[in-house]
């Protein structure tokens, strides 16, 4: 199990939800609220490359939310 933490002051929840939906076919992940961070818990054995692509997707989606 791996965790990705996204700061609430930078990333938007809408972007994270969109990214989780977009990647659900490739990796099993869950969005959690952890104080000042959103946590994405990846249950499957996802590769580092996929996780990096995920964070890039979230960044792009956040930019579009502005």
């Amino acid at each position, binding site marked *: 199990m791996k965790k990705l933490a996204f*700061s609430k002051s*930078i990333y938007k929840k809408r972007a994270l939800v969109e990214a989780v939906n977009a990647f659900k076919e490739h990796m099993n992940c869950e969005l959690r609220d952890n104080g000042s961070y959103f946590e994405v818990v990846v249950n499957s054995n996802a590769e580092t490359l996929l996780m990096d*692509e995920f*964070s890039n997707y979230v960044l792009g989606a*956040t930019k579009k939310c*502005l």
Partner: protein
Amino acid sequence: MKIVLNQKIYPTEVILNACYMFLENCFIFLEQGKKDEAIVVYFKTKKKKSAKFLKSLKDAFTNELLHCSLRYQISRNNKKLREYIVGRALYTPFSNSDLDILEDDKELDYVDDPLGIAIPWEDKFGKKKKNEKASV
């Protein structure tokens, strides 16, 4: 590679816009710095690249930050003007000439086609050549 940016100088919107331009070449992750006003940008190239490339990437990113800051500033300065123009365009009432056109349209039936829009291209241009050949 990481770059620490001050949010007083570069607002979050500017940093996001600049990062967006580099998503194609590298993986980027943003984190809130230890100080509240700082954002840390982590870069990871998609393919293994030399240190020289990373240096040039950093330089390009700082330039892009300045570019985005300028655009952000201009957009903020022109906000009222843009709102005024769009508001004017949306809320301007119909002129008399527009109303005349609408009234003329009422007399037309939906079957009428005064401008010949409903005629297919083949009927208008395509069959002429065939007919010409047939007549010859």
